[in-house]
């Protein structure tokens, strides 16, 4: 078991003929992921590593059974692409594209939420379920086994790189992952850590979750409240990076666009305090997560 993606995940890639999208398509296919169709307006009849390309999602959905979309179109076209996926009844949408204007992101997320579709991203490296050999997005590249082996830990991280590194640390501790998810580096994203923990809570295979956190947002504060309310009862191990940013002037952004401390909100020290109060095992140093994992 895993969350969000499994053997039943049947994917269409919007913007499949782009340089990066086609390379990632190959890596996903090689891993075993079922990519059913690609959408690029005007390119009907072409194929990308054997995946047929359609002009519209509607045409692809008439021909095939599709339940998931990966969005790889340029920033200016993302809003339209999300609406196209939602209107064709897809209930899981992963937005890889970064640098989307914030007004567009607001509309996309609202539109999807209203239709009951789950969005991961924008600005995500994707997610992976190594047991079923499904990976979405560039996460893991052409060598996913290096960092991602099947096991019983869930991984949540804003940073794609740290999704991989953290999964590798889990492997180093002699364990593996159910699903590893890069939630995306933007301040506005479709799936927050809290909403993912709710899914991990339901997943029988997942024993514990490891969360890599950064400054900014209220994600960790929300997680702490969620745990206190009884929404997540499994072990949560967390590491909060970027404590040094608290010493810098407010409004300074390091790393991801979402990693910004504003109006006193988003400070790592407050996140750590609140997580600990909720019973989360917060590692002082990142390497300590290995000890926490060994204690499980």
């Amino acid at each position, binding site marked *: 078991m895993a969350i969000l993606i499994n053997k039943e995940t049947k994917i269409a890639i919007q913007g499949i003929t782009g340089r990066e999208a086609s390379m990632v398509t190959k890596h996903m296919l090689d891993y075993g992921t079922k990519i059913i169709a690609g959408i690029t307006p005007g390119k009907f009849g072409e194929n990308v590593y054997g995946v047929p390309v359609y002009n519209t999602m509607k045409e692809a959905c008439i021909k095939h059974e599709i339940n998931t979309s990966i969005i790889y179109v340029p920033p200016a076209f993302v809003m339209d692409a999300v609406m196209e996926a939602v209107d064709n009844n897809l209930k899981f949408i992963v937005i890889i594209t970064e640098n989307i204007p914030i007004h567009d992101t607001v509309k996309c997320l609202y539109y999807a939420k209203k239709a009951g579709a789950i969005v991961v991203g924008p600005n995500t490296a994707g997610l992976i379920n190594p047991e079923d050999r499904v990976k979405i997005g560039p996460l893991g590249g052409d060598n996913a086994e*290096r960092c991602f082996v099947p096991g019983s830990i869930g991984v949540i991280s804003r*940073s794609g790189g740290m999704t991989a590194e953290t999964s590798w640390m889990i492997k180093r501790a002699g364990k593996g992952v159910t699903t590893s998810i890069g939630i995306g580096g933007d301040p506005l994203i479709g799936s927050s850590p809290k909403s993912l923990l709710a899914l991990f809570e339901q997943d029988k295979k997942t024993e514990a979750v490891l969360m890599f956190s950064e400054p900014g947002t209220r994600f960790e504060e929300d997680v702490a409240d969620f745990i206190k309310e009884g929404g997540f009862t499994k072990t949560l191990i967390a590491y909060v990076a970027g404590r040094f940013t608290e010493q810098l002037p407010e409004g300074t952004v*390091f790393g*991801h666009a979402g990693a910004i401390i504003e109006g006193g909100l988003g400070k790592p020290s407050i996140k750590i305090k609140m997580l600990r109060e909720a019973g989360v095992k917060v590692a002082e*140093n990142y390497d300590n997560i290995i000890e926490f994992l060994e204690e499980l």
Partner: protein
Amino acid sequence: MSRLLENISKGLISKEEIPIPNFQVVATPEEARKAAQEIGGEIVVKALIPIGKRKKAGLVKFAKDAEDTKIIAAELLGKTVQFYPINKVLIEKKLNIKEELFVSITIDKNKQVPIIIASVVGGIDIEELSRQYPEKISKTMVNPLIGLPKYKSREIWSGLGMTSTKLKQCSTILDRLYQVFLKYDCTILEVNPLVLTKEGIVKVAAVVMGVDDLAIFRQKEIEPYLEVGSERSWKPLTDLEKQVVSVNEADPYRGTARYTEMDNGEIGFMCGGGGASLLLFDALLNLGVKPANYTEFGGNPPEKKVYGLAKAIISKPGIKGLFVCGNITSNTQVDKLARGIVRAVKESNKDPKKFPILVRYAGVNEAIGKQIIEEAGIEYYGDNITMEEAASLMVKRIEVLRK
């Protein structure tokens, strides 16, 4: 976020028929006097620099006549505040204030929708407003797919106890402000204060407008006026930061290299990945070594970009070593990285025996990368150690130098 100077933002809202006081922009005290004379009556003088809370910083002053305006303009012009030199001031008619109100439109990051905050108390900042008059503030979420229907604007002000012509004027202004917020991809549009004059007219006395950097491609009209701060912080770029910006922009679509200079610091910090860089900076500080800069690079940068970044980092005076570290990557070519770093080190005449350099990088082509790095006498690790283990080894190398 990019800010617009107040003369520009006032011009934009005035175009949408939102009432503003008469103003002129001047660059000398004498021009200020003339402008004040033309406008007549009492005058407000405002420093035109893109920073917030100007009133608190003493950059908004009141003059009783033209001569007084000249004196105040002379005080402000030529000063530098938060790195911004005051080259121009705004000379504006002082409104005959009866009441001060507040209205702000922004995006609520938790609710993920636009939010309108309005208050029948204004002229003080929102933090203080929330503390002192929580009952006089209204917060309204807007459906982003529909926008702000006119009746909502009326509901907001009426709900705060407003009526008659004041209600009508304020509702129309809010309605138009929301259009401006959408039209220019604003991240914030704040009017503080919105003024009801003794003559019974509602006008925008001060406005703050921030525009989404990611939407500039469709904001060509205002692009020339956007005051883009350093991407990292609200201050102008240092020479080294500018150097890295040009390195990055020389090849904007392949990989990224970002650099922020820190005060003092012992070692050059060249780390990859947004999350990994945050972690590694903390790790070094915890171990007692302060990095001389912050960096993130990634997305498989070409050799030239790596070289340019490494060269800039190494060139900061006083640094004692270089730490190159990143999370295990699936796309970064370690051989390119190795070539770029080795070239920068050689050209900078740094001897790895006296200037410790440690690389921890695992990714594509790492066997070749390892070879290139080790042949240059530089210490290399792949995924045989963790990132924090690498940081601690780096600190040991620096501690040896301290002895």
